[in-house]
């Protein structure tokens, strides 16, 4: 059920995202936007310069891998078949079932809540990339930064995108812990 490209891009994304989030938290700590800092044991890069070097190296891997997945997923129909349709009635029904712990979590056929969350995290990654570009190059990519509300707003959008991705990861890893067979599927491709 998981084609090889989907599995490879999944694991590259997991590694790149780990580096981006860990180094991003260290960069955040240099000038926190909100009245808290991330604990240093959760960050990557032991000072700002190292964290930035990691962030600006791993961003290429993250973006290239994401583009590869999107290109493959759209052209092959993988995304359309696996993640769509998104019907509000089905999502509502499956969300209620999930809250009563009566929703099957199946790698062969995603339920409506899974489909919604995977589409949302895809949008979250896209937003993280776009807002990241906007704060990396607020002069050269000025139109993009402007669309996102200017440099200071784009910083917050970037933080928001990270928060959404992290929230997804928490749910994702919790469900993998509850249904460990999904981990095997994502490695071997077989269900």
């Amino acid at each position: 059920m998981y084609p090889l490209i989907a599995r490879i891009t999944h694991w590259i994304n997991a590694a790149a995202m780990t580096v981006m989030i860990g180094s991003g938290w260290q960069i955040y700590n240099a000038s926190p936007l909100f009245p808290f800092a991330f604990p240093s044991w959760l960050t990557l890069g032991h000072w700002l310069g190292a964290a930035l070097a990691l962030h600006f190296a791993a961003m290429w891997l993250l973006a290239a891998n994401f583009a590869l997945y999107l290109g493959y997923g759209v052209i092959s129909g993988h995304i359309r078949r696996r993640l769509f349709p998104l019907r509000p009635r089905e999502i509502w029904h499956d969300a209620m079932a999930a809250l009563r712990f009566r929703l099957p979590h199946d790698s062969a056929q995603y339920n409506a809540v899974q489909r919604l969350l995977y589409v949302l995290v895809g949008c979250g990654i896209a937003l993280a990339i776009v807002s990241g570009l906007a704060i990396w190059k607020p002069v050269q990519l000025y139109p993009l930064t402007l669309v996102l509300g200017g440099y200071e707003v784009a910083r917050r959008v970037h933080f928001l995108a990270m928060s959404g991705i992290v929230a997804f990861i928490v749910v994702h890893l919790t469900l993998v812990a509850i249904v460990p067979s999904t981990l095997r599927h994502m490695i071997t491709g077989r269900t």
Partner: protein
Amino acid sequence: MIDPSLHRRGLRRESRRLFLRGTLSIGALSLLTGCNLEDDDAVDRVLSAMSRWNDTVQAALFSRARMAPTYPEADITDPFPFNAYYKLDQVRHVDGAAWRLEVSGLVTERRPWTLADLAALPQASQITRHICIEGWSAIGKWGGVPFRDFLARVGADTRARYVSFRCADDYRGSIDMATALHKQTLLALTFRDAPLPAMYGFPMKLRVPTKLGFKNPKHIIAIEVTNVYPGGFWEDYGYNWFSGS
């Protein structure tokens, strides 16, 4: 804003050019590479190569026609933050009357400049956003001599790759020639229409609104046009050299 002493604490743990040593835990490395690399120099080399690649990308992305956005007076950040590799009470106080600006390297006119010489040149001003590598930003107003006019007056070879700066506070920096010739790059003598206060770099700082704050050296005493990569104070510890905005 980060306490500069945090930077120093970070730096004390570093030797030059080994800035990334210990960057990744072995666990994170295994995750990245699938094996147990223990040679941190390999990580250093990869990240340094990526930083040079990012210099190339940024140089390609840089457009001399693209102006940094400008703002109305009402948007100026007050008070404008002080930031340096030292604390506010360690700011250097330069004697403006005795100050001379040295010019060297690939130029035809090597005579030193006084403040009066610079003030006599046509002046420009801008209200632009200063973006710190730490993430914060602030809007300020700087006035002074467009750097490209200055480079023309000293007969700089504008085909040279770099312009480097030495400062009275022992800071060093360098920029690419394309940025040096950008219309908004200024040898700034004023802040908010008054002579630069000591904390903002009296008597002269470089104002580059197309680069991060640390690429805007203060208290400049010497300028050199060169083809030999000059590095800089933070760049030598591992900050990306181009650091364009």
